[in-house]
């Protein structure tokens, strides 16, 4: 069932994101061409046109980023909490499947947008010999890697992986915070959106408050010193520990948001 | 077929009457296959179960018979159809008489009124 939900979720969002990427590509190609002589000031009109195209590229980048954000919220809000919710919540699918389908699809679009922007930027920068330069750069990079010690290479890869996981989980938790606020706000009879905003900042405040309490508390009780007094990690290990702790925090946040979302969608669904 | 319903009688009894009228007037000719319950119900805009009940009643009276696989058919027995026709006519006459008596007409007055009306109709036919 999740597979079918994902299919239709991609259908619903792709019709907006794919044209976005097309615009990105077109303006990127345009900017590339504009860079080849349009902007050197010989012809006034060409000059203006060039500036316009490059501006359009900038707007397309912002637009794609903004759209993947708006879509993340809008799909959850419109498809589950507005009129379409009557259809969605009477499908033979569970609340968990609904949340995961929204979460996975919006994450995929976030990542795809970042990749699309990188690709578009490469298109803008492309010139004769650009590919060769890029390959050269890659070769230098690989050579540099070869000179690394095994442990350095190993740790570097793990850092990258940890960082990527952290980024991904933060993205998921970020989306879940919006879902939780919307789901909670829409369990109210009136002023649903207003309540959602209140919930968003309420959650934010509560978590920060709990976080600071935890830090203050552990300072008071000297937890860190007691825990780590006999442990003197190398900087390499310390970075791993920090990254893993950050990942742990994000997972806890995400789990709380997820629990709030499912609780309200299951027990206190109140469609208008 | 025109299907019309009043508000005071059960729908299935009205359906029985109207299918009878259909048979008597030849809208459902003798020996012909009746449309399916679902089609008849859709046409009349009534519940299929109610239509089913009405047809079952007609079947019990013998105006309609069913063959296991082929569906329901109108009887080929003309005397039965004529009897039904007569009983429908008697019902109309009865309600007519009730109304006339209520208006205060005497039997002979009613008869002469009918004759007059029929005579005019004949005159209409003659002039036409």
């Amino acid at each position: 069932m999740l597979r079918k939900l994902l299919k239709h979720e991609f259908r619903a969002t792709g019709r907006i994101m794919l044209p976005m990427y097309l615009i990105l590509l077109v303006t990127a190609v345009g900017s590339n061409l504009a860079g080849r002589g349009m902007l050197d000031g010989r012809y006034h009109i060409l000059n203006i046109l060039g500036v316009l195209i490059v501006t359009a590229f900038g707007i397309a980048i912002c637009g794609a980023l903004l759209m993947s954000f708006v879509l993340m919220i809008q799909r959850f809000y419109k498809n589950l909490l507005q009129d379409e919710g009557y259809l969605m919540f009477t499908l033979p699918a569970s609340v968990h499947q609904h949340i995961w389908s929204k979460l996975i699809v919006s994450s995929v679009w976030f990542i795809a947008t970042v990749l699309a922007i990188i690709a578009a930027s490469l298109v803008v920068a492309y010139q004769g010999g650009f590919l060769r330069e890029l390959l050269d750069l890659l070769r230098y990079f690989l050579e540099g890697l070869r000179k690394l010690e095994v442990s350095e290479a190993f740790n570097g890869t793990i850092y990258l992986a940890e960082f990527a996981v952290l980024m991904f989980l933060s993205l998921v938790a970020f989306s879940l915070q919006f879902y939780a606020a919307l789901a909670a706000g829409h369990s109210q009879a009136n002023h649903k959106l207003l309540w959602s905003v209140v919930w968003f900042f309420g959650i934010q405040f509560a978590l920060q408050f709990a976080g600071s309490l935890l830090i203050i508390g552990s300072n008071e009780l000297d937890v860190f010193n007691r825990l780590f007094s006999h442990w003197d990690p190398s900087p390499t290990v310390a970075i791993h520990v920090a990254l893993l702790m950050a990942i742990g925090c994000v997972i806890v946040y995400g789990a709380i948001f997820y629990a709030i979302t499912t609780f309200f969608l299951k027990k206190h669904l109140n469609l208008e | 077929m025109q299907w019309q319903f009043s508000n005071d009688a059960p729908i299935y009894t009205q359906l029985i009457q109207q299918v009878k009228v259909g048979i008597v007037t030849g809208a459902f000719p003798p020996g012909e296959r009746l449309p399916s319950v679902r089609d008849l119900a859709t046409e009349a805009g009534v519940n299929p179960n109610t239509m089913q009940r009405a047809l079952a009643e007609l079947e019990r009276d013998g105006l309609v018979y069913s063959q296991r696989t082929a569906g329901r058919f109108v009887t080929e027995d003309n005397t039965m159809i004529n009897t039904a026709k007569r009983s429908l006519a008697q019902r109309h006459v009865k309600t007519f008489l009730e109304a006339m008596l209520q208006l205060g007409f005497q039997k002979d007055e009613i008869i002469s009124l009918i004759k007059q009306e029929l005579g005019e109709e004949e005159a209409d036919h003659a002039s036409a």
Partner: protein
Amino acid sequence: MPVLECKGLTKRFGRATALDEVSLSIEPGRIVGLLGPNGSGKTTLIKLANGLLTPDGGYIAVCGTAPGRESHSLVSYLPERTAIPTWMTARQLLDFYGDFYQDFRREAAEEMLDHLGIQPRQAVKQMSKGTREKVQLIMVMSRAAKLYLLDEPIGGVDPATRDYILSTIIGNYNPDAAVVISTHLIADVEKVLDEVIFISQGRVALQSTVDDIREEKGMSVDALFREVFKC
């Protein structure tokens, strides 16, 4: 086994009691009218049967199970508002229903859409309000479900559309299933119903067959309704 059963079903919204100890049972093979004035609790009952609300007390079962994933595959639900995504085309809508419901009869739906002159590439957005309601009903009635819950299917449409909707319901109804039609427009649905349930201020005021009412009281359900709910 009844396809819909409630016992002592209670639902409150804040201080207001929308349903108060409702007990009823609906058997398969019946077209049942859920009748009551606006705000009497009809929609609340239907939403509870669809798991869109959770009861505060009592018990509700659809085909023997509590409303949820399992019951959703047995119930075909027509909400009181247009819930189909308006960006979808007719064909995408058919895909959607076909993917999620195993009992969806795509050919039947295609035939009915074709009959209305709706092109597969036409988007719901481009259709009139009446056509959207018809399309939504076609999707709902094209499922071979065990229970159809139709919330105000004929509210706010013109008389011709009303006739179309009722004949679509009759034409697609199957004898193993039950159809529940909630409405306050009784004169229009009366002929289509086997049974009626009157709901008044969150309570069941009457459950009877249409022919019994007409036979015993000598009046139409509509007339009886006006008498029961006289202001």
